[in-house]
């Protein structure tokens, strides 16, 4: 359960204050599949970063499972990101020096799982995303679709209840994009909460509900 209450975010560009969110409130119950739509600059990524605990709002509160994240320190916030949230980025954002298996293991390393457990779970996850045979490849040796599937496996590593996707298909061809979305939806059917930022109306249409943003506010 994610709840945002009157979120505001103001970026300072030198002397000028640029409001990115102007008071956004929303509830996302467990197991929901939400698309956040809007043109670039509408604040949809900013909203995702706030409720995904990657950034702190200027004012307002984000509750994750009834915990007020504005009261948490950096370490506690990191724990939330590690255990409750899986993040998928448009640019995949894998660590280039690590192979697929190690990339998937990384969140478990920060979690403190044993090496044996990590390797086993990472192999399992790579099998689930269909990349068991690519475990030892570095990101540069994988296609875009493959990299994104590694990123999904990584997001699932600590078995978080919520997956955030910031334009997860934005850098993929249509075919790979469809594969990724199918896979994410399968996760949602198993009970995973799915929150996707997109400006692709086709993807937005597949979600249970769609939130539209414009100039830092929600459009009903």
């Amino acid at each position, binding site marked *: 359960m994610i709840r945002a209450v009157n979120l505001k975010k103001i970026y300072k560009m030198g002397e000028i204050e640029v409001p990115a969110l102007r008071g956004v409130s929303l509830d996302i119950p467990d197991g929901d599949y939400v698309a956040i739509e809007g043109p670039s600059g509408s604040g949809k990524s900013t909203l995702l970063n706030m409720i995904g605990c*990657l950034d702190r709002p200027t004012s307002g509160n984000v509750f994750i499972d009834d915990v007020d994240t504005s009261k948490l320190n950096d370490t506690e916030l990191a724990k939330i990101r590690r255990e409750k949230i899986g993040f998928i980025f448009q640019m995949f954002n894998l*660590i280039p020096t690590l192979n697929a298996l190690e990339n998937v293991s990384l969140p478990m390393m*920060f*979690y403190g799982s044993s090496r044996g457990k990590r390797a086993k779970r990472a192999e399992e996850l790579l099998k689930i995303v269909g990349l068991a045979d690519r475990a030892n490849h570095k990101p540069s040796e994988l296609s875009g679709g493959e990299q994104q599937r590694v990123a999904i496996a990584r997001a699932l590593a600590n078995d978080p209840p919520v997956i955030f996707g910031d334009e997860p298909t934005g850098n993929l061809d249509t075919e790979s994009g469809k594969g990724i979305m199918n896979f994410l939806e399968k996760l949602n059917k198993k009970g995973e909460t799915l929150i996707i930022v997109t400006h692709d109306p086709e993807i937005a249409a597949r979600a249970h509900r769609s939130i539209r943003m414009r100039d830092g506010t929600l459009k009903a």
Partner: protein
Amino acid sequence: MFYDSLLLAYRNIRERKFRSFLTLLGIAVGIAAIISLIAVGYGMQYSITEELIGMADIISVMPGRQIIPGMGGYAETITERDIEDIERIAGVEDVGPWMYGTAQVEYRKERTPVTIISGDTQDLEEMYATYAEFEDGRWIYEGDHRGCTIGYSVAHEYFDEDIGINDRLIINGEKFVVVGVLEKAGMMASADLDPNIFLTIRAAQEVLGTKDIYMLTVRISDIDRADDIGEEIEETLDQNHNMDDFAQAMTMSSMIEQIGTVFLILQAVLVGIASIALIVGSIGIMNSMLMSVMERTHEIGIMKAIGATNSNIILLFLTEAGMISLVGGILGCILGTITATLVSIGVSFYIGMEMPAIITPEVMIGSLSVAILVGVISGLYPARRAAKMSPVEAVRYG
């Protein structure tokens, strides 16, 4: 997590092989400088102390207040009576007087002033035998009142024609026969040997026209009582001359102590100089780590986004800095040992006296600890900077 950070750090270092190597070299040079300077310093101290311990049964006695011509002062010197009195002190085996002076020396119509050194012939031989071999001939005997032994420079540099044994010299008007010519001495003893003519005490008294004794060497039977005997000698001489501190008796142990202090200062200065190299190396680490943080801002953001805490990130960067400096430290130890060994071989050869490179485990361990400490401290600022970045800013970067 620690083992994992080792692995990740290793990957990152390998990814930037050349730069990591240069950074590591900076630390290595610093550590090598420290190790080799300390090793050479210890070696020097060791060989000089060894030399002095070899003479531990000797106390040297000099008038404590030096006579400054024209400034008043004490014109008294050690006398025959002093020698007799010292000989009576329990534990004293033998007292050897030493005289120094300058005399006009004439050889085949050519004249030049030369320093005369004179003492008991046995003492002369013992004092100098280790430093130089004979080119020809021998040391003067006690009965050689008309014989002299001459240094290398006197024989070959002071006069147009070389001097050999059985050649005749006129020293302050007295005729002498050369009984021995020394070879060139090593650097340590060269000033004591090469430019001098050695005479018996009796001959020196005649030639120099004085009975003034410059210094005494007192041989004792019991080394453990050296300090007590030294004090007794001082008291006896002070009484004889009716002065508070006329004489100064110097035992080898007090000399070794004094030299120890000098070496401590020397070591401190050397280490200070070497530290500069280390500081430069640590600036190198900091610079390299800062660059690494900048380059990996994006990566740090990703790690934080997927749940890394600030301390996770700090650990990663500190491990990397620590690893570079540890390897640098080890390399530095090896380089330092090689340098010290080469220097000691070179110096031993040059001064003609064995001077080992002394590298103790403490110095090794100490240097390695310093290397790691320097690395970690230099890595701390970049690591904290990395950790403090907001994940979303960092992810967006690059």
